């Protein structure tokens, strides 16, 4: 259980509960009201031990959870968002960016890494909801484009973990065009015969769902995630009636035919490992992982 220990040490949690429950304090489940220590929650992979509610976690947690021995290299980590349109609403975009960077210690809402899952190499591009709601802007689009190019060159499968409210309004049409950019790049990945696994976690909505998140060779979700194109509030306002129970949950989306499976967090690594074994893609060159959580390209 070496990787459990590493999860406990040093890795900062990016869950929505962090501020309310710093380490050693209590986690209060928003679904079942169960109370446990933050340490217990962490040891259960940030899943409520009582009702299995999957709390939101960040890219570092997913990387640790997936990769063998917690070893992986961060890729394309030099990209950073900026305010190209001088966008100001109630708060200038530049200030939103600065405070998000400070709060999360991240440069944007996505990190990309390469590592091994049960000995098979995999590139994982994962969103961070804590960075402006995981919104898709130019940096996310570029990282996905670079990740697909890298996947084609190295002949290594790609997994994208989505957790996003959709496009980043403060980048206006630049963010909209990332839908076209990422989908176009994934069409090249498909032509190269490299598998793409889309993992949809809570929440996956808007332009992210309407582009790469729905384009997986395999579409997988975590239990109880909100998955949709339009948000439930917008739909309710438009149709002026109540929404069905469980509407836009992973379970509902599985039934309507847009997911291959729902996988609990504790089974994620094994499932991905199985998929990689079955696809059995041979990398074009040896993948060398330099060190733990390395930032080299």
């Amino acid at each position: 259980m070496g990787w459990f220990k590493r999860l406990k040490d040093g890795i900062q949690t990016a869950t929505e509960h962090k501020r309310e429950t710093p380490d050693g304090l209590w986690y209060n489940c928003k679904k079942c009201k169960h109370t446990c220590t933050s340490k217990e929650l962490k040891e259960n992979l940030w899943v409520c031990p009582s009702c299995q509610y999957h709390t939101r976690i960040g890219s570092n947690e997913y990387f640790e959870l997936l990769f063998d021995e917690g070893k992986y290299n961060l890729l394309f980590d030099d990209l950073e968002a900026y305010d190209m349109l001088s966008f100001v609403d109630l708060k200038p975009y530049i200030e939103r960016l600065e405070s998000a960077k400070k709060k999360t210690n991240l440069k944007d809402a996505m990190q990309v890494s390469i590592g091994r899952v049960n000995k098979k190499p995999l590139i994982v591009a994962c969103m961070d909801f804590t960075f402006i709601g995981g919104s898709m802007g130019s940096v996310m689009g570029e990282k996905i484009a670079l990740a697909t190019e890298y996947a084609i060159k190295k002949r290594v499968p790609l997994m994208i973990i989505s957790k996003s409210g959709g496009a980043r309004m403060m980048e206006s049409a630049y963010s909209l065009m990332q839908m076209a950019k990422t989908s176009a790049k994934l069409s090249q990945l498909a032509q190269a015969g490299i598998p793409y696994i889309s993992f949809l976690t809570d929440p996956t909505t808007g332009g992210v769902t309407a582009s790469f998140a729905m384009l997986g060779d395999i579409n997988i979700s975590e239990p109880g995630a909100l998955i949709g194109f339009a948000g439930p509030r917008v739909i309710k306002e438009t149709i002026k009636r109540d929404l069905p129970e469980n509407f836009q949950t992973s379970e509902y989306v599985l039934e309507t035919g847009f997911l291959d499976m729902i996988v609990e967090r504790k089974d994620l690594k094994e499932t991905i490992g199985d998929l990689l074994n079955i696809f059995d893609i041979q990398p074009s060159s040896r993948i060398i992982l330099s060190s733990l959580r390395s930032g080299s390209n």
Partner: protein
Amino acid sequence: MVFLEFEKPLEDLYEQLEKLNEVGEQGGIDVSKMTREIEAKIKDKRKELYSNLTGWQKVQLSRHPERPYTLYYVDKICKKFLELHGDRHFADDKAIVGGLGMIDDQRVVIIGHQKGVNTKLRQYRNFGMANPEGYRKALRLMKLAERFKLPVLSFIDTPGAYPGIEAEERGQAEAIAKNLFEMAQLKVPILCYVIGEGASGGAIGIGLGDKVFMLENTWYSVISPESCSSILWHSWDYKEQAAEALKLTPEHMSEMGLIDGVVEEPLGGAHADPEAMAKTLKSHIKKELTALNKIGVDKRIKMRIDKYRNMGKFTKV
């Protein structure tokens, strides 16, 4: 005539003109000199108002109830058009139309959002808001175009993809995503025009092309100014500011390098002289298709994907 808020000075002048004509007729007075003066004033005022439109004013113009929609242009541009229906899976969406056409000697497949021209038809067309079937019908027709080596012409004019329970259940997101994925690799040319509203995923769902142009009084953005105001300003009252902040006009989009150019509209907007607009559009389409047809398939697909590949701005640290 329908006047928009910002056209109030024009409306006043037209009223003056009408009164003057009445007085002239009733009194048997010659008012022709004064009429000419007012008409000259109208012309100047229109030029003045239209030379410096704000983002919000362009949004209003794009939604003008008299503005021509896809089927109007199709009728004017094509010497022959056969509308084709249905996605072959679920239904025929009325908010996206499509079919086979002849523009002079150029055979094409045309797809486009369609809004209704009166209250009843607006309902029938679901206000130009397509369900997944609409996007799937468009894809079916694009695949037909590919099989028979016909270029695709796409007209974009939507306030957004429809946000409904059934739309979600039948995979609105998947339908749009699939179109983007397939349009990227389509072997025939794709030429797109934003002819009205270009709202977000609903617009780009039929809008990935070798060349994308916007008519002068249209908008294209990740979100409508109203929804942007509601989300970022927590109020519906900041749509003008939102429209400015989003830089959604054809001029901005062109400067940002996200579209390939702007097509000029008649003075007063496309609705002021729809025939002239259709004529301009037809010659623009013919010129662009001629150029696109000359490029080899593989090269064209590569150029198309590379164009989108390069969209986006960021810094490196």
